[in-house]
């Protein structure tokens, strides 16, 4: 899909949801929602709990079939793709995951290679290299032979990220990749994602930390009640009014002294007031 931006340059998007209605049984989360993921962007989705961020990601990666509208990947409805073919193009880090009993880190990360394997073509040197790169990038290489169920929450989260990276898809969706991570590891991971993005991957991440969102996003999507409340470059869309409207949080927005991006400072002083 191509769209002419105000500056006149063509903005393309390989992945887009076109007027989708997303629902679980009778519970409708989003109606007539249209979202385009700009190519080469690091798109960050923010919004309050339960507003439909995970639901949107799930629909983009075929986990949830829209009850109307369609998700388009490279000009074709995702529902027309063979499952593995789509899985070689778009990857997902789900919000919650489960590991089989007793699996080791290396084995789990290797499972991300499934879409590249077939009945005949099983484990190959390319798989091995992808797994090693993903483990090194996420800093879990030293844990390779440890059982996943004996890791800390943060170590485990990095293993799941490694599994998603090992899938080596040009588009990668991450649902709250920084959960469980301490602040240093959060920044490490976001830096890694930014590096992947600069190297050409298109990324979509759901984040809860607004300041991290504005700092790392090249494209920001703000959601409220299943709809898009604002969208665009963080500097353009991020205002105190928006934060108050979407999150109900009184705040001031100042310039981040380090990155120059918008920085949210809540005005509530809690018990000191």
């Amino acid at each position, binding site marked *: 899909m191509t769209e002419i931006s105000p500056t006149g340059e063509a903005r393309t998007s390989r992945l887009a949801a076109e007027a989708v209605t997303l629902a679980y049984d009778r519970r409708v989360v989003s109606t007539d929602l249209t979202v385009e993921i700009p190519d080469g962007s690091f798109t960050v989705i923010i919004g309050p709990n339960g507003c439909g961020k995970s639901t949107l990601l799930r629909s983009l990666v075929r986990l949830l079939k829209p009850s109307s509208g369609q998700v388009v990947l490279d000009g074709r409805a995702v529902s027309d793709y063979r499952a593995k073919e789509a899985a070689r193009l778009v990857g997902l880090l789900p919000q919650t995951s489960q590991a089989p009993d007793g699996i080791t880190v*290396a084995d789990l990360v290797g499972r991300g290679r499934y879409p590249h394997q077939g009945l005949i073509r099983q484990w190959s040197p390319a798989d091995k290299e992808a797994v090693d790169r993903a483990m090194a990038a996420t800093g879990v290489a030293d844990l390779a032979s440890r059982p996943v169920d004996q890791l800390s929450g943060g170590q485990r989260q990095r293993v799941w990220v490694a599994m998603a990276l090992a899938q080596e898809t040009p588009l990668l969706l991450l649902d709250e990749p920084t959960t469980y991570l301490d602040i240093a590891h959060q920044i490490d991971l976001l830096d890694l994602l930014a590096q992947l993005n600069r190297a050409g991957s298109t990324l979509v991440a759901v984040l809860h930390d607004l300041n991290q969102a504005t700092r790392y996003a090249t494209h920001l999507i703000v959601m409220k009640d299943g709809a898009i409340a604002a969208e665009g470059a963080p500097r353009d869309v991020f205002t105190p009014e928006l934060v108050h409207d979407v999150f109900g949080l009184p705040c001031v927005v100042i310039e981040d002294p380090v990155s120059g991006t918008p920085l949210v400072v809540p005005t509530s002083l809690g018990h000191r007031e």
Partner: protein
Amino acid sequence: MSASLDLPEAPASAEQARAGAVRRTRTRAGVVSLSLVAAVVVLGLVALGTGSLRMTPLEVVDSIRDLGAGYPRYVVLHERLPRILAAAVFGAALGLAGAVFQSLTRNPLGSPDVIGFSTGSYTGALVVITTIGTSASAVAGGALVGGIGTALLVYALAWQGGVAGFRLIIVGIAVTALLASVNTYLLLRAKLEVAVAAATWGAGSLNLLTWGDVVPALVLIGLLLPVVAALSGPLRQLELGDDAARAHGVRVEPVRLALIVTAVGLTAAVTAVAGPIAFVALSAPQVAHRLCRSAGLPLTASALTGAFLLLLADFAAQHWMPQALPVGVVTVVVGGVYLLWLLAHEARRKAA
């Protein structure tokens, strides 16, 4: 599709650690599997030589290779081999079916014998025995229909836009309880001789099996094995949860249905011939998992463990008891103890 991720090169130590970890688990599973094969072969040869005509394993091998039509050769090939082969292959089929079911339900209780399948087969067989008669093929047909019917019923009742493992187990246990009372009712209504025949079948037995009984089941199991092998990759992905499996390109519902049908087919083939032999499907995968220290339940090792367990149980039932018993009695007693341990262990794990 070329990968667009440009990650830094992995340091050599990480590479070695990874390769080492994977090699260790694979090697361990390989050693365990080879040991199990050896154990099954040795136990099989011992069992072939045990009975009123005693032979050493070497004599057994000689009697089979001896092309003459001597008496030992007849005893080994026609009286004992069908039973011993059935014990090994049926055990393998049950162990494999158990591994598939328990992986799908992510629960060590999610085994065909716990979630209604065996009880349903018994119901089918009982209906046939009390209405048509005790001919082996009619009973086998009744058991097949009863077991598969129950599996379909449980699947349909547990369906809710997809089948979650836990629902499948709960519904299965409820259906089992219901069918157990139906079975009791059918037995109470039957004439005494009929009831005795039915109860013997219902205990699960390999007694008096001939090639004619065993071969159709062996063929069916032989046809289903490659199907399980082809589905083992997607099954490993399902262990990561439905979302991750779908994100990796697994068509979750068709794959799960195919796996259930295959596992039901494996169990049905055994049950139709030998009756409901409990607890092999329940315990073999867990034993194999602990032996191999594998990720998830290992399919090959589960099958081999099942083969070994059923051979051993049948040998014990035949030769170690004051009087020969149906093998199902032995597996129920041993398996019952295991089930109690499992329930206590799971309860403690959940509480922790």
